[in-house]
């Protein structure tokens, strides 16, 4: 049995001949939590979209769970939280989750929806159309949508965006539970203090390339911030003149 959940080799993605992800390779195993860090435009979101099969790589190969990644059986095991919530604004949380639950053929859907809404603190809002939600509430519901079918691989693009202190605590608890259940998580965030302690490994992207990665747990936050600034400063990747 293949031990890697994600096997990416030389992934490259270009938009209008401009490389946004350029030769990214990584192997991520079951139960690992990987943090993708990097400045704006480093290619974090494109990387996650490639892993989520929403984009096809311009070059390179990707395998998920040891299989071809575009199969429905593989997509069933993915949970993706992106910049957009993927929620229908005119439907209530319950209706949104019923739709996604049926699409993913979730068993015991009603109980699962009740549990997920309870865990994310949205039980009292279950029958309110999403259009009336604040950004943070919509983000929590988007997380509920991503978790509803109990995916084995969670891809989270800046999951802390718009969350208040209670929302952040709920998200941390949810991610902690997912980690205990040996779910594989790949997340991007600019919030080192929240994201880094969860990570088993960290990757810093710069200009679409892996500029630095840790082989095991990343250093504490203050050291990591220093490292991050050193790696991502504009001169760090530019060719050095030979002496």
């Amino acid at each position, binding site marked *: 049995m293949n031990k890697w959940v994600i096997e990416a080799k030389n992934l490259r993605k270009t938009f209008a001949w401009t490389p946004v992800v350029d030769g990214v390779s990584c192997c991520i195993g079951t139960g690992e939590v990987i943090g993708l860090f990097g400045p704006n435009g480093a290619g974090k979101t494109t990387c996650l979209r490639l892993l989520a099969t929403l984009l096809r790589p311009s070059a390179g190969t990707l395998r998920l769970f040891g299989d071809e990644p575009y199969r429905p059986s593989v997509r069933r095991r993915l949970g993706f939280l992106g910049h957009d919530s993927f*929620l229908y604004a005119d439907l209530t949380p319950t*209706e949104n989750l019923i739709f996604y639950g049926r699409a993913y053929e979730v068993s015991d859907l009603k109980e699962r929806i009740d549990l997920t809404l309870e865990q994310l603190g949205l039980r009292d809002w279950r029958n309110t159309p999403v259009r009336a939600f604040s950004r943070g509430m919509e983000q929590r519901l988007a997380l509920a949508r991503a978790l509803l079918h109990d995916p084995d691989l969670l891809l989270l693009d800046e999951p802390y965006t718009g969350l208040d202190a209670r929302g952040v605590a709920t998200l941390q608890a949810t991610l902690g539970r997912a980690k205990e259940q040996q779910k594989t998580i790949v997340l991007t965030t600019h919030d080192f203090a929240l994201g880094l302690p969860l990570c088993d490994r960290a990757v810093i992207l710069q200009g679409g390339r892996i500029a630095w990665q840790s082989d095991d747990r990343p250093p504490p936050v203050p050291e990591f911030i220093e490292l991050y600034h050193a790696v991502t400063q504009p001169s760090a990747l530019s060719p050095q003149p030979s002496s």
Partner: protein
Amino acid sequence: MWPLLWKDLHLELRTKERVSSLFVLAVLIVLVFVFALSPEQAQRPEVGAALLWVTLLFAGMLSLQRAFLIEQERGCFFALLLCPFEPGTLFLAKLLGNVVSLLLVEVVVTPLTLLLLGVSWSPSLLLLPLVLLLGIIGFSALGTLFAAIAVRTRAREVLLPVLLLPLLVPLLIAAVNVTSALLAGSPWPGAWLRVLLAFDVIFVVTGWLIFAQVVRE
């Protein structure tokens, strides 16, 4: 496919945006034509047939755009691509939703048009629902394919008719000819009906097969 239809039905029942706008547009087109035509012109079968299909064409364009616009808000279209079903299933669901919406419109608009144009009763009119259904299926099959492309572009309102209308010409010629023959009480217009049927089969099957390539990058 059923979760997609259930979701679209719920959204329509909640907002009532799609069917209500189709009704208003279709009735307005019929009224404009009826007022513009003289009674003699209005009773010509080819005029009645043209009016029915022009109404359906414009209402259909609106319906197709609405079907995919609801998926654009908050990125829901990407969520559909992530769901563990084949994109062909998404095509069939959108096709079926569009067919049902247009049939609902036609249930009201066709009798209204025939009444306002003063079309006299003949047994051949019993075949009209079948012709409308075949035309709507063909239109929706090709339209769903192109609406999925157009909706992801900035010029979606322009792009959809530009892409779709030239390819609809065979369907429209066949549909208008069959409808015209039925309104005139002519005998069974078999040849054009076979063209309609062939168009439906070709584009439903093609759409189902290539929708994955259309919607994926």
